């Protein structure tokens, strides 16, 4: 692991151009005095409505519980936490506008949430001008810590390539030999399938083929037929939200799981609830699972049950961890000024609900354990739950700095 921050090629190019004075260097927005001492404002432009509203709502609940509990303890550095939560409906144009309002009008310099990767990619180039720090809690796109990396961006969550890597590591010891992949036809799907293919080839497995479906596909029968015909032992799925639910429901109706093992890049409770028993036997990586046995996680789950009467879902846990990273950084920096906070966050290490999280300096990715879970029936739960079946050390699931690829 190299210890120095390496900005992206595009960022370097821009610096070069700026040097040639052909690009306007926008005036950087400095913090006002009140923002230096008043409440600590954390802005969350979230997709609370629309197709990914379910994810945005999880992030909202995760952040809100954190703020409530931390404020009861006196906030951070004695300053109360104020959450600015706004709905973007998942539209990057709205997201940029909302984030800009948080920065320009409400003097907020800390951003998180930002549900969609397309929104995050639209926001990150603005961070320097806004003098703001953005810590991702759910963006999966590997590029954010690779070619699109900017100095003020950090990722506390497990990225798409990391999730895929966990699945791949798990498969090295599994009997399954022949694989097919089905991904959503956008960056996340393509990145993850690509990583999976490389990993499968590396571990001497057979990668038979792949297919991509556009988001919003309602009928998965052509894809299910393709998977059945491929003769694969297992299919790797990179699906989310409605598409994931539609695929799992229809795959079960076709009795696909009896013939082909379903592996998935991401397991979350919302999907399990939406498809019920159709998720049984599903194996996949988990960004966060409430069933992971760790003192801090058990404490968090208990808190959550007390507050909401249910167990926390994937992005509720991810958001909680992200807030903990923010907290640690602010405490270490002694404030929220971007330059200091950035320096503090680089190389910071905390103990969180998922175990140790270390934000490495080189690409601002949070190095953390990878989890493999299997969806099973468990007494005490009326829907299936994900059970942790393997964990992998962070060093093995995190890509080489500034890339989406892995060494071995």
């Amino acid at each position, binding site marked *: 692991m190299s210890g120095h921050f390496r900005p992206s090629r595009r960022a370097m190019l821009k610096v070069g151009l700026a040097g040639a004075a052909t690009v306007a260097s926008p005036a950087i927005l400095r913090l006002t005095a009140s923002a230096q001492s008043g409440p600590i404002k954390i802005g969350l432009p979230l997709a*609370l*409505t*629309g*197709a990914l*509203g*379910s994810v*945005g*709502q999880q992030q909202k609940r995760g952040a809100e519980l954190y703020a409530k509990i931390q404020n009861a303890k006196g906030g951070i550095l004695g300053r109360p936490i104020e959450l600015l939560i706004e709905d973007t409906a998942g539209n990057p144009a709205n997201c940029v506008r909302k984030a800009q309002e948080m920065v320009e009008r409400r003097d907020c310099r800390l951003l998180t949430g930002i549900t969609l990767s397309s929104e995050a990619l639209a926001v990150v180039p603005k961070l320097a001008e806004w003098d703001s720090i953005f810590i991702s809690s759910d963006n999966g796109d590997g590029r954010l810590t690779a070619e699109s990396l900017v100095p003020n961006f950090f990722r506390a969550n497990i990225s798409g390539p990391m999730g895929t890597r966990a699945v791949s590591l798990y498969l090295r010891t599994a009997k399954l030999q022949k694989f097919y992949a089905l991904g959503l*036809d956008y960056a996340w799907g393509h990145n993850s399938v690509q990583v999976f293919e490389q990993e499968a080839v590396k571990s001497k497995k057979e990668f038979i083929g792949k*297919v*991509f*479906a*556009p988001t*919003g*596909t*309602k*009928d998965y*029968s*052509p*894809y299910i*037929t*393709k998977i*059945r*015909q491929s003769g694969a032992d297992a299919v790797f799925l990179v699906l989310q*939200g*409605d598409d994931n*639910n*539609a695929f799992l*429901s*229809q795959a079960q*109706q*076709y*009795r696909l799981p009896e013939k082909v093992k379903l592996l998935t890049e991401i397991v979350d409770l*919302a*999907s399990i*609830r*939406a*498809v*019920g028993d159709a998720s049984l036997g599903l194996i996949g990586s988990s960004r966060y699972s409430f069933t992971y046995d760790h003192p801090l996680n058990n404490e968090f789950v208990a808190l959550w049950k007390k507050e909401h009467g249910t167990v926390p879902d994937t992005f509720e846990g991810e958001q909680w961890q992200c807030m903990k990273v923010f907290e640690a950084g602010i405490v270490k920096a002694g404030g929220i000024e971007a330059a200091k906070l950035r320096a503090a966050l680089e190389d910071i290490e905390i103990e969180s609900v998922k175990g140790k999280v270390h934000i490495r300096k080189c690409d601002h990715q949070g190095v953390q354990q990878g989890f493999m879970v299997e969806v099973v029936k468990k007494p005490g739960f009326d829907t299936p739950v994900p059970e942790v079946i393997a964990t992998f050390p962070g060093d093995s699931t995190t890509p080489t700095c500034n890339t989406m690829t892995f060494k071995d």
Partner: protein
Amino acid sequence: MSTLALLLSQFVDALSQSALLFFLGVGLTLIFGLMRIVNFAHGALYMLGAFVGYSLGTWSGNYWLALAGAPLLVGLFGTAFEFSILRRLYRRDAHAFLMVTFGLALVVGEAVRLTWGSDALKVAAPPVLSGVVFLLDEPFPVYRLFLAATGIVVAVAIWQFLERSRLGLLIRATSQNADMANALGVDIKLIRSCVFGIGCGLAALGGVLAAPLVTASNGMAATVIIDAFVIVIIGGMGSFLGSLIGALLIGFVQVFGNYYAPDFALAFMYLVMLAVLVVRPGGLLGKEA
């Protein structure tokens, strides 16, 4: 899997998808034929159907009640909307309908989210429809056969209704010439309310039938409204038979297209529409537009 088995299962798949598309399209085309308005809220009502079906199903534990009840309730809602708001607008130009139904789509969409939440909800098919049958030794979901059969039954029923029943006759007469029908003593207002309700009910039927395939979710409405438009326009605005043909065409093109050329999945529907409209600007069975 033998080629024959593959083609057979794709054929039935396409029929089942066409059925879902048909429920959407036929409601839209009936409404357009009669009132010359484009109902932008059609997708939202489809979604409402799925959620109402979910609640009826969980409350009664009876799938068949949900299947019958959701279209009825959504149909009544449609009638009430026509009665209270649309009725005031027939003398106005098309903008008014465009905006009022756009508004309705937003209102219904958000009301669904507020009532049922953001998470997708599981709608299970009843046990009798949950199994598989073997088509040439390949498992095929019974539920899809049921969809295809329902599609055929509903299409025949609507056709017979339009051809044979008195109300059907009045609807056809009014579609062809509202003034004339009015002069002959047809209560156009009543017919309009009925047809708007029937159209909304059919959309809801599509929603409640689609739910076991795609779950009931907030994202349901977004894509289907465009599908419905495309079907209706390919068949010819206002033509019952046209909407049937449009649904079959799109159903088959999507199932076969997504299998054989998945890279073009996003474009198929529009390429078909483009081709049809360039050759026949009024749609396959439409009057020259």
